[in-house]
């Protein structure tokens, strides 16, 4: 009765297959079965955004997705942002602006910011603040995060 569900999916451009239980979240699958520890569990209830991933171009909390739902979908995690040793502009700007202190929320913020800039390449400060409101940060007061996203947006637009 506990037979695993076989799931085929695509993670950061690579095909992946795994077995999971019906009630297992995608976050648990990523971390415990696939060894992708970038997404963090801060709450497990969709309230902190630390486990954010992009699922078929849609930003979601992986703690609110079942592993079984990943069948046939495309998943992007923080591990897929850098190309080889070339950091994504958001990653680079987070470092330059010191937009992280403890860093536990950083993977979620990077993914949420990536999704935000994909949909709105030139956001205002207010749009950034509301766009990232699903991600909690307790260290920075958000100031340097917002600045890093603004700066990265400029770089990505070639401004």
């Amino acid at each position, binding site marked *: 009765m506990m037979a695993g569900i076989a799931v085929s999916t695509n993670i950061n451009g690579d095909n992946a297959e795994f077995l999971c239980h019906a009630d297992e979240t995608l976050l648990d699958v990523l971390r415990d079965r696939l060894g992708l520890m970038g997404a963090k569990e*801060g709450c497990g209830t969709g309230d902190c955004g630390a486990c954010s991933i992009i699922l078929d171009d849609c930003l979601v909390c992986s703690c609110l997705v079942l592993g079984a739902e990943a069948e046939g979908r495309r998943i992007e995690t923080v591990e897929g942002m850098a190309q080889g040793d070339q950091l994504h502009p958001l990653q680079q700007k987070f470092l330059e*602006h010191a937009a992280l202190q403890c860093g536990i*929320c950083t993977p979620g913020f990077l993914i949420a910011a990536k999704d935000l800039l994909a949909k709105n390449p030139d956001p205002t*400060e207010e749009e950034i603040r509301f766009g990232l409101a699903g991600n*909690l940060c307790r260290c920075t007061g958000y100031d340097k995060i917002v600045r890093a996203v603004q700066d990265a947006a400029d770089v990505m637009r070639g401004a």
Partner: protein
Amino acid sequence: MNFDPSHSKRSFSSVGTRPIRPDGVDKVTGRARYGADFNMPGQLVGRILRSPHAHAIIRKIDTTKAAQLPGVKAVLTAADLPDLTNGDAAMYDILDNCMARKKALYDGHAVAAVAAIDARTAKQALKLIEVEYELLPHVTDVDQAFAPDAPLINDTIFTTGVDPKPDRPSNVSMRSQFGHGDVDAGMARADFVVERTFKTEQTHQGYIEPHACVASVSSDGTADLWVCTQGHFVYRQHCAQLLGMDVSKLRVTSSEIGGGFGGKTHVWAEPVALALSRKAGRPVKLVMTRDEVFRASGPTSATSIDVKIGALKDGTIIAADATLRYSCGPYAGAWAEVGAMTAFACYKLENVRTVGYEVLVNRPKTAAYRAPSAPMAAFAVESAIDELAKKVGMDPVDFRIRNAAQEGTNASYGPIYGPIGIGPTLEAVKDHPHMKAPLGKNQGRGMACGFWFNFGGQTCTDLNIGMDGTVSLAVGTVDVGGSRASLSLVAAEELGIDYSQVRAVIADTSSLGYNDMTDGSRGTFSSSMATISAARNAIKILRERAAQMWDIPVEDVTWENGHAVAKGETHGNLPKLSLKEIAAASGTTGGPIAGHSEIVADGAGVSFATHICDIEVDPETGATKVLRYTVVQDAGKAVHPTYVEGQYQGGAAQGIGWALNEEYIYGKDGRLQNAGFLDYRIPVCSDLPMIDTQILEIPNPNHPYGVRGVGETSIVPPLAAVANAVSNAVGVRMLHIPMSPPRILAALDA
């Protein structure tokens, strides 16, 4: 100690720059390993069963069914944790808090634990544990618990610090008192007096990473603990003592830490994980859920504070008096004591008295939260000061400047101050453009001051120079917010090499001598002091080696900008030797080159800040919006200014959250109603404006570079700054934190 820690004026080349942190790339690529990101082969999953009752005798625990469930490898109760504390009351409280012994003392108190092959089995096993409770009357409110007829939480608690000694137990574990002069006589002379009672609710540090550890105990008595903590040496000490292990056989490795703010200075589940592993004979991973973090780690005190301040017509504060009641959970604490010490620390006062009462309540054991106890006291005092300034007819900044403490002032908590920054932060605020910006309708501006002691303490650092001339720095204070970058800068500065040539790591407890925790804003202060001392020890060796290489007396060798330089008439023409050249030759000149340092980093300089807040209040709903916020704080010397700003901004944001919406809400049943991030409302990105910062540098004379701690002070002024802003916006004095919309609306309608 061959090390002079006193400040000398110098110019810096590395210190004060803003390079990228050494652990940065790992943290933006998801590679950094936090508490829950570590696994051991064969590991089990640990889970804890918690009391749903606020106060209950544990009559019986039947674990038979749980133990029989296939996949369960260990079941644990207090019976498995014999009392080895040997009369140490503080340790006994920690033991009892880790696993309730006779009574469950709060909603969330651990009563049993299991280790099983996977999470679902562990969860199922918890349901099979049968606990028989006998419910007792409970009390969760600090004022109700303080009342003489309150339900008694611990019948061994007799108030200390009162004369005569009480003959019956109560919920007040200690009375403490500070001050000097004659407050009553001073108050009698006052032309204006403000007297108010303030209340603040309990808050949580709200770190995003839940407590997590992996424990592995071998049958030969050795053990490993991987854990997110602010102090792995302290965790080792506590776990070893509670479990009867040899300190040196328990190796504790601190993972990357996802925030602590004081909440990861105390052991909660770690001794349980070790005990489970010992019983099961396998590694055990134990990760708290968010619900457990709120219910069963260590939030702040809730407080109730009476303040009375009197001033003369000319604006001199002539007397100041405060009585502070702080909740400390169900165990004795010393939180009001700290509040009583900090309350009036910003001011030069002839007559001052503060009295603190530690109050037991059926809530989780209070833990430190960033400048613990100071924000609540500052809220009460700075609110009253603002009101008093109005009565006297003075501008609130000028009123504070007139009464600010200075070098030579006797602090309200006792000793005299050295060079301090309260005056300069106030002068900077007075001149700040923020203070002159116009305000609109329903908007108000508030400002407030804050103080924190800062700590030093035991510190140990190793600095090892590789054969290629690069430096590895092993530090024992956990890096929560970028201290590895700062300490690398300090090592580079002292050795005279480039920042990129240094790599700082946090060493485990087997690799370095004892270090106190990263608390009390001591991380960069004390470890930089130890790093400088270690670097100077290394330089001494480098000079000896250069002398050997040149075959000249070591007295003729100096160290300048990363090079050995030969001095004197006879060797003046020798070309200087770089650190890299000396390192390359080290194999033939006496072996590896290293500098070590073991110090007690005394002399942490006190820290002051002044904050300005603009807020808009919707008078119809009580909704608030922070429009602008400015932090001015003394850093002594900012080693990495970007991370100093980050500390200022983070503390301010936490304080704003506390001021406006964060609070523990208990039901009549004594249960916590909002144990999650949805209803425990820490500020989100769209709740805040940019937070402007201004770093002042008034050197700490007791540190070679003038460094003071910077981490904590920034959370002290915001409660009062925001409250003063709201009070100015609505014209009603706000007395209860958080100023949630229902409270603001109720105050307006009162």
